[in-house]
């Protein structure tokens, strides 16, 4: 007898108990606090550095620094949260609430007016030492890249540590401050963190 009627107890119990499923649309779904719903950008904090765009595995985020646009294609986003880890200002976050389905993919745009870039004075690097540093500094003049006033600089390496792209090389013993321009994304974190305020963008 033990080999049959094994399931009867479960059946009887289920017959007289409430359904385990929720009456969904009538009874709204509860999302836990950590639920990966969608990416939210605290746009006041955002510096449009573009790190989220560079690190998005699906390429869902597009940042247009010059136009002042931060765009996200919610349908391409996979809610991995890598951008929130990479964001230097920590203005991106994952919050509950899923994107509703739609007939076609669209981008969500956050926009702010950006002042037209003003040409910078050409001779900012007054006390630049000779050699490649000078060339570097001269090359970066006036196009939004950071440049250090090396007469003020104490080579504390704070800027290099804060650089999200590791584009800065600072050596205290050799009095060297170098920028790898191809890696720089002009986020301005180095200038913000400089204790001597000797970096200008």
């Amino acid at each position: 007898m033990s080999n049959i009627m094994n399931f009867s107890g479960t059946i009887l119990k289920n017959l007289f108990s409430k359904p385990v499923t929720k009456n969904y649309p009538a009874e709204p779904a509860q999302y836990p606090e950590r639920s990966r719903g969608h990416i939210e950008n605290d746009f006041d904090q955002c510096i449009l550095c573009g790190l989220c765009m560079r690190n998005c595995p699906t390429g869902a985020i597009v940042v247009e620094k010059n136009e002042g646009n931060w765009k996200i294609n919610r349908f391409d986003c996979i809610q991995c949260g890598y951008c929130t880890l990479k964001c230097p200002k920590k203005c991106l976050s994952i919050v509950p609430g899923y994107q509703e389905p739609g007939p076609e993919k669209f981008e969500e745009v956050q926009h702010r007016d950006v002042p037209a870039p003003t040409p910078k004075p050409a001779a900012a690097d007054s006390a630049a030492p000779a050699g490649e540093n000078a060339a570097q500094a001269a090359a970066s003049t006036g196009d939004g890249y950071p440049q250090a006033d090396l007469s003020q600089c104490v080579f504390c390496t704070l800027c290099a540590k804060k650089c999200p792209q590791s584009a800065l090389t600072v050596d205290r013993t050799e009095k060297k401050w170098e920028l790898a321009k191809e890696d720089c994304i002009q986020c301005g974190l180095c200038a913000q963190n400089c204790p001597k305020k000797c970096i200008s963008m």
Partner: protein
Amino acid sequence: MGKQSIIPFGPQHPVLPEPIHLDLVMEDEKILEAVPSIGFVHRGLESLVEKKDYQEMVYVIERTCGICSFMHGMGYCESIEHIMQVEVPARGRFLRTIWCEMSRIHSHLLWLGLLADAFGFESLFYQCWRMREKILDMFEMTTGGRVIFSVNKVGGVLKDMDEDQIRQILETIDWIEKELTKIKKTFLFDYTVETRLRGVGVLTKEQAHDLGAVGPFARASGVVLDLRKRGYAAYPELDFEPVTSEDGDCWARCEVRINEIFQAIDLIRQASAKIPAGDLAVEVKGNPEGEYFMRVEQPRGEAVYFSKGNGTKFLDRMRVRTPTFANIPGMLQTLKGADYADVPILILTIDPCISCTER
């Protein structure tokens, strides 16, 4: 000798939602030979390493599969950590273990449900998936995702569990243990279920070894092969023995998986009792240079992750060998001589995941 005919099976089949196609050479109702063909859903995930850097790749690799996504991410991360000689903090390793075992519970419950569905016991199928749902809720609470968790990174994990969450997980697995003990009787000793499973698709120990079977499929034939013994994550600090069975038929595979759920429950209890406080992850600097073969015991068996870095942020090669890939030859063996009506069950008992097989 009867007349031979070839019956195509799949890639679309009512009982089997996996895109595998088999040409079954039949003589009357008996199968003489099965010729598999896969490749309907090849996505080329492996070649994405050329475009995504090694840290972004974690999110790609864990999307190889929707069931063992956590373990895919973890296996990949551990292979990179081996190359870069990164030591993951103890708490990170224990959290990985807990999530791994939760994945095992939910994968095996899913499989039990599918098996019940395949032999036509639908209310049993509902019971299994009802339990699985609770585990998914626990995943959502701790990681934020129900299917894809994105909590692994090279160097550790991203999210922590607090006391309350661990307590809720323990309560859930207590409940699952209680419910599964009830259902276990139906799965293993019910008369009708036994007729469908006992003696069907026998794979002997020698055959399992000679055909390179892995995971519960091999363990059901008596092969002691559990990669957790190799000691990744926090498994070296936990006490467990591989679950095996002797018969090698569908019933044995079912038994192994049910006992593995109980084992996973036990491992979560051990891990939550021993979990130390501390950091979740270490900062990883630089790029991987070198190569490593990482092997992980997934719910379906041994998975191999081969990473080869060249010192830049893009890897030269990333290769995932999923357990189903290794189990297909064994499955073809069990199909030989079987009845046509048993084909869905035989394919199911290797717990196939064709999408991860093709990557």
